[in-house]
């Protein structure tokens, strides 16, 4: 068995060379301007509404809520996008597409909104990254070819790897310092020193709650909790993807009965014509003939 199956796949698609060329143009037009921009714009909005402040501000990145909320929110949209790309194309990049899209959106915001417009230093509003976790999720789906196993193992790793991945970015901000005789982390001090008129300190939702047993290993307890909720969220959003991503036709059969056809690829096939006939106004066999003509070109 050949290592690369690209040639086999193209042949199996039964498209003429012009069709293959056209399909690549469709790939380019559909993927970059439509799918990618659409996903990054909508996911960015979704993420900022649900986990925005934890991701905007360095003094919100705590051991409990940041670690808990971010993976849960980050896995929702990829769940639906992964469903779509996997179910219809067997493409295992839904999560990476979503989270690199979020990354692009985040950096546009950091540079244009926070730095250029609002004059905050970029390190103060540095976003977290989930791209590593997304790669784990996509690789798990590709290797297991099962969304359930992906939900159990991939999503678990997705959430558990969030803190270690981002510790490399934000570890420095937990260095201690003393201001006016009071111990603070550097992140606390940055939140204090950069004046945010509309965001007083009490707005922070940090370090509140009971996820703090097991000898103070709060961050891992939060990550575990986050992983379980993320599994649930992934499952729900995979089904959301199923709900909004399905395509079907209502077809009028030979006896005039309307039937819902979920398998859109079968429409126009010989098998379909044999089973259901053809719509009014189309001569039996016309569609089959047209299709046959197209396939024989290859």
């Amino acid at each position: 068995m050949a290592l690369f199956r690209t040639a086999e796949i193209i042949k199996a698609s039964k498209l003429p060379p012009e069709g293959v060329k056209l399909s690549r143009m469709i790939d380019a037009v559909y993927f970059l301007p439509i799918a990618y921009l659409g996903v990054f714009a909508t996911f960015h909005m979704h993420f900022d509404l649900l986990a925005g402040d934890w991701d905007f501000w360095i003094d919100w990145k705590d051991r409990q809520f940041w670690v808990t909320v971010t993976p849960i929110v980050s896995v929702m949209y990829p769940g639906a996008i992964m469903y779509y790309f996997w179910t219809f194309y067997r493409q295992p990049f839904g999560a990476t597409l979503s989270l690199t899209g979020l990354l692009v959106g985040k950096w546009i915001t950091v540079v244009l909104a926070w730095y250029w417009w609002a004059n905050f230093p970029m390190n103060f509003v540095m976003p977290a990254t989930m791209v590593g976790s997304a790669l784990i999720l996509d690789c798990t789906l590709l290797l297991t070819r099962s969304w359930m196993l992906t939900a159990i193992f991939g999503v678990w790793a997705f959430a558990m790897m969030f803190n270690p991945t981002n510790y490399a970015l934000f570890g420095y901000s937990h260095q201690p310092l003393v201001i006016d005789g009071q111990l603070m982390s550097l992140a606390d001090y940055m939140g204090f020193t950069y004046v945010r008129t509309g965001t007083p300190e009490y707005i922070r939702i940090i370090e509140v709650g009971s996820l703090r047993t097991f000898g103070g290993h709060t961050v891992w307890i939060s990550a575990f909790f986050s992983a379980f909720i993320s599994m649930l969220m992934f499952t729900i959003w995979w089904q959301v993807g199923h709900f909004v991503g399905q395509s079907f036709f209502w077809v009028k059969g030979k006896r005039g009965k309307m039937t819902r056809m979920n398998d859109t690829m079968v429409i126009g096939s010989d098998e379909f014509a044999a089973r259901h006939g053809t719509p009014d106004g189309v001569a039996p066999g016309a569609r089959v003939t047209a299709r046959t003509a197209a396939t024989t070109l290859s």
Partner: protein
Amino acid sequence: MNAKNLFKMCVIGSLGMATLGLTLTFTASPAAAHGERSQEPFLRMRTAQWYDTRWNPQKTAVNDEAMLSGKIHISEDWPRAVVKPNRTFINVGSPSSVFTRLSSKVNGIPMMTSGPMEIGGDYEFVIKLRGRLPGHHHIHPMLAVNGAGPIAGPGGWMDISGNYKDFQNPVKLLVGGTIDTETAGLGAGLFWHGIWGILGFSWIGWFMIRPMFLIRARVLAQEGGDALLNDPVDRYVAYGMLGLVFFIIAIGFFVTDSQYPYTIPLQAGEPKIKATHLQSDLTMKVLNADYDVPGRALRMTILVTNSGEHPLRIGEFTTAGIRFLNKVGVANNMDPTYPPEIMATDGLNLEDESPINPGETREVKLDSRDSLWEVQRLMDLVHDPDQRFGGLVMSWDEAGNRHINSIAGNIIPVFTRATQS
């Protein structure tokens, strides 16, 4: 393209050009205030009563230090419609972080995080600032109350000269060394975002170099299509990518952990700040008050008793950060740096200006009259859901000692022009 469509395109294009032209012609001007006038009068008059606010100095340069200081009295007549000040934060109202805040003390206690304030209590705040962004900025002290929102204090102008590129905000670490909060960790953040970005886009790119959608969809629809699309090379790449991701995460985590061996979690404590209380030899009780809408005046009758040993003269009524003074107030409490747009130096009138002698009880008719009531939109009191007013009355003895009373009471609007009382 037919003529009709061409015409439509021309119209749309012209509208677009006109919009662009208008945008360039009428550029947005910088905000000169923070919407404090839009806050309801009962909120501004009966929650935080600001006094002795100072912006010092009013002209600074980038990296120079300045001070925003003053006092707040938490009104005893705190409105029912506003959440009580159980969690508050003394903040700075400024257009972005034009200053960095170096220190914030309330009654001498650092207030880095939020804490409760006592109704009827008095708090002196001192906020140390460092000039960051050059410009002419309108700066307010603010009391942010959880559940109620920010309550803006009086706004004053502060100028910062110099160049932002020269700005530095160094801070000493407990474990030694100094870092600049403007740039700390920026390189690491950019580096790691770059690494993950490259990996993520490479993964997507790996699938972009081959047919992505239409061809795969057609194959998948066929029997056995799923198995055909399970390309062995993708599985090898996925195994490699998984290993690489875990390896990079581990490297990043352990290197950072060894780089910063001493770390602490975010601090979420609560300062417990003891309130002081207003001192006065006078006791005051509002007997009645009305608000002359067309005359733009607050007229009140107060029953005043002097239980001290010195005669006292009333010199100032201040509410919502707006000051109404008479000659006594000007002589004793005139701060030339206080923003003139929120101060009426001839705005307070007393029917009987003689001092209130020790042991005397007198009905004092006090009239604060100025266009500031309208300009500062305090006349909107008539539209409030809670028709009461509040403020601070200041009196002085011959030696210049100040006595402050917090007053509050019902207020009746007078909608038609009335004769002055």
